[in-house]
């Protein structure tokens, strides 16, 4: 099949960007979208033009490195799919495909389709862990974890940190990511001792970078791992409780 690519080109963080139109003949429907871009890049290089910069690594939907807006959808139109798992058979001969980087204030463009998602790491640094030292723990089976808790925690832990939720959100909010990260730990017995500090610290850190949530729900639609909005509700509830509890704890320490 033949397709027309309208792709965002931007030489650097401060350079102005533009759409470039590239004709791509002879695309196989078995290619992934990123393999199609590989082919385009090879052709561009041979023709003496700089290839299109885009991030990817595992190419099987787990590392969270890839991600772009495809025809206005974060990771493309297919539900529950990262960009690297999107195949050309989902498009038709003659289609025009528009590709842009994540658009979010907190994720500045590095080049072309590559953005800087490091604020996600800052949120984890603020409290996205359980504070145990290497070598200190006791036998893993001493503490029983009810299967539903483990399963629910696992549902949240499936987040791959790709940032599609932020890109899809009209406000550029990171609630879904942050909520998933908090829920992963807060739903487990091991996570209880730091539960309240964790939620407060992570939410406060998030607010330094990202917009606020107005319950559009676009994030869940865009998420390649179908992370549920329920986790946001859980986070909000815990956050309010935490504000109260942490203040009380501080007063006791006072």
């Amino acid at each position, binding site marked *: 099949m033949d397709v027309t690519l309208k792709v965002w080109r931007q030489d650097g963080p401060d350079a102005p960007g533009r759409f470039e139109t590239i004709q791509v003949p002879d695309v196989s429907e*078995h290619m992934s979208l990123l393999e199609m871009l590989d082919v385009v890049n090879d052709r561009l290089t*041979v023709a003496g033009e*700089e290839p299109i910069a885009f*991030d990817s690594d*595992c190419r099987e939907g787990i590392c969270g490195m890839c991600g772009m807006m495809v025809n206005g959808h974060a990771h493309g139109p297919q539900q529950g799919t990262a960009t690297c*798992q999107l195949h050309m058979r989902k498009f038709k001969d003659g289609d025009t495909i528009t590709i842009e980087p994540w658009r979010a204030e907190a994720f500045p463009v590095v080049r072309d389709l590559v953005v800087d998602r490091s604020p996600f790491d800052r949120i984890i640094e603020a409290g996205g*862990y359980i504070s145990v030292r290497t070598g200190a723990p006791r036998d*893993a089976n001493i503490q029983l974890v009810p299967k539903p808790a483990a399963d629910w925690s696992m549902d949240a832990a499936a987040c791959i940190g790709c940032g599609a939720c932020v890109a899809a959100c009209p406000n550029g909010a990171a609630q879904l990511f942050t909520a998933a990260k908090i829920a992963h730990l807060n739903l487990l017995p091991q996570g209880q001792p730091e539960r309240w500090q964790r939620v407060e610290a992570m939410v406060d850190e998030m607010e330094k970078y990202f917009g606020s949530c107005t319950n559009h729900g676009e994030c869940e639609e865009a998420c390649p791992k179908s992370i549920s909005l329920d986790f946001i509700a859980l986070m909000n509830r815990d956050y309010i409780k935490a504000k109260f509890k942490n203040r009380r704890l501080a007063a006791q320490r006072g």
Partner: protein
Amino acid sequence: MITLESHVPDGPIQEKWTKHRFDIKLVNPANKRKFKIIVVGTGLAGASAAATFGELGYNVEVFTFHDSPRRAHSIAAQGGINAAKNYPNDGDSIFRLFYDTVKGGDYRSREANVYRLAEVSNEIIDQCVAQGVPFAREYGGLLANRSFGGALVSRTFYARGQTGQQLLLGAYQALLRQVHEGKVKLHTRKDVLDLVTHEGRAVGIVVRDLLTGELTSHSAHAVVLATGGYANVYYLSTNAMNSNATAIWRAHRRGAAFANPCFVQIHPTCIPQSEEFQSKLTLMSESLRNDGRIWVPKDPNDTRPPQQIPEEDRDYYLERRYPAFGNLVPRDVASRAAKQMIDEGRGVGPLKNGVYLDFSDAIARLGKQAIEERYGNLFEMYERITDENPYEVPMRIYPAPHYTMGGLWVDYDLQSTVPGLFVLGEANFSDHGANRLGASALMQGLADGYFVIPYTIGNYLAPMLGTQPLPTDHEAFVRTEADVMARIRHVLEVDGSRSAAWFHKELGKIMIQHVGMARSEEGLTEAISQIRALRDEFHRDMKVLGTNESFNQALANALRVWDFFELAELMAIDALHRRESCGGHFRLESQTEDGEALRDDEHFSYVAAWEFKDVGDWELHKEPLEFEYVALSQRSYK
């Protein structure tokens, strides 16, 4: 001149590690912060090491070329992680895990290291659970286990199909806790392009900022490489696109011996290549072999769709040849058998490059729902990629390069032949011999990072108390930076006609054909001359556009391909010299009458550690392997 001293402690194998830990020099807690350690890599091995060093109070700097530590290739591991917990009470023990690993590695690993790995395996699970890794659980709340990769006991812990991601998140979170506390400094999107040595010791690294192209030098008391494996030398592999050999290769060029480079694991259950443009091969978890049956048509010219081929016209070749293990033979055996079928022209699929993995019997026996519960996400992944529904049509699978058992040579302390340079995880050669068992790479990465290096590095550091790291304006750094700059300039100046990726792909074809699943004197000799010729062409004809001073992915890639070309030659040389078959290394000249791998313990029971002299010129050193606890025997799965 390199000497290989394994530094394995004396005493019975069960006591070596305990005794050694006692003998290791301790660094006073107040002095730890005076020691600076560089860690390269944030996969399971690197992240766990850096986090633990930070907790202990060392002054740590950690580097990754990824944009976040969480993206390291470890994230992609699906199946699980082994430990000798014996929770299912099915007869497992540290000794059995040790025994299975030595035997599975076809007797080409160091017994003492493997024993230690088995010994610390249990602590890994404790550690990960405490960190909040959501492992699968039974209804009573206990941890669940399964059997994996043909093991006769259920010792594998798992987290849905995302064990690697969950373990890495645990280590990444521990690492970021230390970053938050100011104990570890994190450098992302930094490509480590060379090791700096001075008076024969590792003193630092040269780093290129992938965003700006800026080169900087960093010095430390010790350098730890945890940069992963090199299976991407084949271009098409199950590894992530950016996995590469540069850090270990450059360290090799600076004096670190490279051990058993030809030991590569080719994994039997991957989705076959569909066309020329393909960028990587996708692994389908080995657990599929628990319920799927592997077959090809008896008649190479059979063009019927698989469902219409009756039982009597199918050849379930693994069940036929290995009645005891059937479809669950080890990876190397399953891979080789598939290759034989395809070489006989009995491959299936449009390119005749696959074999069937058929679930129809299992579905008939257990019901579709049971199969969906076990493998639903894998079936979905398969359908997404191939557009075929494996509930109705048998899957097509084919072996793909997956894991590299070879790597930088290390002693019992995980120190390379360059003092002060330590190597962890898939980047070293240590524990898997000539073939790795399923679910044991994650175990090794975390064992090295959490439980081995934090102790063993003390032996090297303690005597250095009071010394400062070499200043980075020292000549050793200036010279190395200039070397790196010269490489960058060369890549940009060639201005030939083909991308580096194109050359990489061509290199991969040579490697898979001649240094893949079946190797021969003739093929390997041919490979060496083809690699050399293509490498010359690469240096004359590559085309890399743009500048150094920008985010330039093609430039970063070309530097990696350069190193793959040199490593490829050493792999072929190593494979040529080892005139025996063992594990994943199959020499056509060394097989039994019925076509099984034939080891030659009399001549090859050693680790081959190569010293770099020049490209095309390596000197072989041998570390003899002795087996005191696991009797040498020819593996048999019949």
